[in-house]
């Protein structure tokens, strides 16, 4: 994963490849570097979490992969094709506001399927939307508008929408960040169950700031550090699937990984605080 790595050397299985990704905001006067030299290969079917303190650029990466933002330098390849803009070959779930409030749960999913490009009839689309609403346990809330659903239910609809689109990759930007801890546990299990089966087993790029969440869900965890945002370390999570939340949390290996992750993050955080304090002293 050297910066000079060329396109040809990408392993065949890689679905997403970041090479030398840089993102800068502002003009020459006041430049802010959000991402600097991000390099990462993501294998087909891998669940990758990006973890790090706020401001480390994890959401920026999602925005670049989804095509919402154009990097200042570097490229993102999906299936060896460079990303040139947004498109329904990537299914995205944001923390909130993924759904359109003027469409019912059912209409939201149908609308997304309609835009995946396949030639579906209206009946097929409806059937598929219905199927996915049932999979997330919201069959009864087919005609409910997002405003009438709880935050957890809205995210379930968003996830149903993402899976129903059958994209190449799933992009999730802190999808459970706004939920209470019980809802979050429920959603993590739901996501794992749905993801582990058949056509839904696709590459996932998942942003979180929760170490336990990352360890439970991921095959690999990329730890990011802020100012400028870069990937400091990529950690393999060796636990076999299906994973059991209860037994997993008690193993020594899990605790060792968790404490390692926390120490890396904590170290970064302390460094950041130190840095800010020095800046503050400098100003004073």
């Amino acid at each position, binding site marked *: 994963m050297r910066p000079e790595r060329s396109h040809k050397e990408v392993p065949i299985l890689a679905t997403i490849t970041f090479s030398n990704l840089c993102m800068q905001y502002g003009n020459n006067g006041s430049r802010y570097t959000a991402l600097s030299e991000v390099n990462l290969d993501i294998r087909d079917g891998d669940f990758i979490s990006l973890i790090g303190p706020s401001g480390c650029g994890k959401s920026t990466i999602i925005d670049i992969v989804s095509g919402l933002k154009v990097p200042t330098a570097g490229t993102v390849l999906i299936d060896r094709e460079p990303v040139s803009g947004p498109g329904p070959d990537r299914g*995205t779930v*944001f923390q909130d506001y993924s759904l359109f409030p003027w469409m019912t749960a059912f209409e939201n999913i149908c*609308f997304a399927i309609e835009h995946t490009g396949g030639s579906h009839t209206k009946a097929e689309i409806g059937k598929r939307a219905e199927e996915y609403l049932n999979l997330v346990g919201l069959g009864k809330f087919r005609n409910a*508008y997002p405003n009438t659903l709880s935050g957890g239910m809205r995210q379930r609809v968003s996830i149903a929408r993402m899976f129903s689109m059958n994209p190449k990759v799933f992009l999730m930007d802190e999808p459970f960040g706004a939920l209470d801890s019980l809802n979050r546990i429920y959603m993590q299990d739901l996501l794992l169950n749905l993801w582990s089966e058949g056509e839904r087993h696709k590459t996932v790029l998942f942003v979180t700031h929760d170490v336990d969440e990352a360890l439970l869900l991921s095959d690999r965890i990329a730890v990011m550090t802020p100012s400028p945002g870069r990937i400091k370390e990529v950690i393999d999570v060796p636990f076999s699937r299906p994973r059991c939340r209860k037994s997993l949390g008690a193993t020594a290996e899990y605790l060792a990984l968790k404490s390692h992750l926390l120490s890396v993050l904590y170290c970064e955080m302390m460094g950041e605080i130190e840095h800010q304090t020095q800046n503050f002293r400098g100003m004073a």
Partner: protein
Amino acid sequence: MTEEIPRTAIAVYLLLAAALAVQVLVPDAPRQAAGDASAFLSVLVLLAILFTAGLVFHKKNARAVTDLFLVIAVFLVLWEVLLGKLSLLDPLLFPGPAKVFQVFASDWQLMLYGAVGSLGIMVTGYFFALAIAIPLGLYIGWRRRLYDVAYPIAKAVSPIPPTVYLPYAIVLLPTFAASSVFLIFIGAFWPILVGTIYGVFAVDHRIINSARTLGLSDHQMVRRILLPGAMPSIFSGAMIALIMSFISITVAEMIAATSGLGWYIEYNHQFANYEKVIAGMILIALVVIAVMFLFDRIQQHCLRWQQSE
């Protein structure tokens, strides 16, 4: 059920009955004589029926319905006793209710014709404004560069009362109807345009981003995301536009028409027929209430996704 209906409901019936009794038993003041009071008596009976229907069909709002009708009944009784029977004010300028409601019985054809004509002109101009201002507003709101030009223009031109265009409209356009349609169009256009532009801005950028990830075409972005997202603000603009349209049409008719609601008032004013002037005012109020009711219903339907229950 009896518990849900407030006790003041009885007071409404009593007041309406009292108004009826006073009209029948007490003679009108000399210059307030209506000749035939049957129209006023019908209005009282109609109000009693409407009130009962309101209590039956709006049980949840029984208190509000009762209070509303209480105000109307008190107003009618005072109007009848102080003006119709005691004639405390100039009887020419301030006719009693019996005399005013009699106008509806005698002039109903003319009034209906006028109301239909006025509404026809108004609806035409209003729909032209909707059809042009909404697409234009969506486009301007979506294209930053257009907005930077359009906004200062809209801000400068929109407060100009549409009636100032009347002299030119009359000279340039062939008929009164055409110039009124133009006038209403101008008056309704700006509020709808400004409402639409603001509406596009009000759509949360996170929702727009979510839409972009689906890879929507520009056309679909406008039709399926920006239009519904801007709808709440479009409706507030359209409401102001509707009020402007009512003002424009009545003023235009008062100045230049030979029929219609505004003309009816102005024409009878010239003959010092004040009971007809007041009857015309009541008619306009009724038409406005009916149109606003319809507007509210359409708004509720289109924005049903906003309700959180």
